[in-house]
């Protein structure tokens, strides 16, 4: 018997990334990026970048209030991918230096965080 599904249909290839990357707060997603290894970021980016358009279309297809746990995990995963895209596509080999600067500029409030 297979384990319970973590993500909506069509996004199974991203399930291995849920445990580390699907943080439910903005500062949590930022911390995932800053604490991750380059190997972790590249693995997540490599698996998720091509699915991102499909995932955002899926997520846009229903009201946030109707999201189930699987939808929320996909949303958090895709929001984490925003931060990973900045690391992989913008900072590239400068990410370690960038991360030390980002730690000095912590995110202290986010209106979309679960209360």
């Amino acid at each position, binding site marked *: 018997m297979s384990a319970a599904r973590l993500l909506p249909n069509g996004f199974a290839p991203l399930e291995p990334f849920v445990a580390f990357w699907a943080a439910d707060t903005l500062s949590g*997603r930022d911390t995932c990026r800053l604490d991750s290894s380059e190997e972790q970021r590249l693995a997540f980016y490599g698996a998720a970048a091509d699915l991102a358009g499909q995932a*955002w279309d899926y997520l846009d297809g229903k009201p946030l209030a109707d999201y189930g746990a699987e939808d929320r995990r996909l949303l958090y995963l895709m929001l984490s991918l925003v931060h990973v*895209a900045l690391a992989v596509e913008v900072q590239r080999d400068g990410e370690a230096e960038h991360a030390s600067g980002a730690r000095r500029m912590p995110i202290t409030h986010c209106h979309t965080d679960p209360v």
Partner: protein
Amino acid sequence: MNEHTPSFQRPFDDALKGLGTDPIPAGVYYDPDWYRLEVEAIFRRTWLNVGHVCELPEPGSFFRCELEFANASLIVARGRDGAIRAFHNVCTHRGTQLVGAARGKAATFSCPYHRWTFGNDGQLLSAPDFERFYIDDKASCNLAEASVDVCAGLIFVNLDRRPRQCLREFLGPMGEMIETLPVSRASAWDEYVYEIDANWKVTFDNFQENYHLRFIHKRTNGAPPLETTENPYNYPMGFELFGPHRMNTSPGGSVLDDPPKPLLLQLLGRMAAQFAEEGLTGGAHDRDYFIFFPNLYVFGNPSMHFTHAVLPLSAERSRGVFRFYWNGEPSGARAHLARELALAFAREIHTEDGDVLMKGQKGIGSGALDHFHFQSQEVMCRHLYHSVDRMVRDYLSEKGGAR
């Protein structure tokens, strides 16, 4: 105008010429005696942005605000009557701080020491065994107030109980302009904060000149070969001065796809579509960067619609608070993406500044230089220097005159 002046550079008018071209004395960026004068002449008697009305959504909502430069802690609260007030977080019995929480909701504030209890309008409501005091007028024991007022939803306080100018008069025409921005309708905010070993003006100046962009922000802002663009330094399209305040118009910018950024560009496209659909783009001030004396920026750009306040902590240390303001909860996943990307991308850029600011302060603070230099496109920094200098000198002459 010489033949090399590019079209983006507005010819300086008389107001800008009045700022001169002299080198700038380095001492005012680290000297503790000058810093103390700035605190007295400016920060203790000027309107300072400390928050937004959306933080006080209902009667009883409050937040605490630390103004270290004055050793002051304020409680900013909405009373039962709906009015916003600012009080010193100091019990009028023996001075104990009343509130430790950063924010919350409370009908009353009680002193932990002897349980003097104040209403959220600052009135002393009760004090155990009050008959044993030698106080005729209980109202004289109400919490000490600071001045408070609101513009564009932004809450400003002034430690001067009788400000020389009301807030609107102080903010001038730029106050009316920011009232047209989304911040004035905001109901929610996101925030990131930094503390840095740099004088508040060193920190602030970094955010009012574009000269450094292609060197410090080459990854986020791009640094195209100098000869391939008319404005390789991304200088503002123009500047304007309003008393001690100033504004410039951003030349806009685009994220260069070199090296390739396929995912980021896709996400930025979704963000832009979302903000357009929400009607946030296309306003008269989309590219305007409002810089209020002494320490506040408000950027009109809908995809970077932030405020940034820089508070002095000491002669060589400051704290910056970036706030992104939003109207309502995200309407859907794309709105959530847009807000998160807007903040993350701005912070990506701002993170790149910290290291060079600390290096700048180390150099200036060493005393090696008597003077340093601002070029014509660093005129906003020069204007801040002049505004500070004038106010400190006015303060000294007032003080001298009072003797």
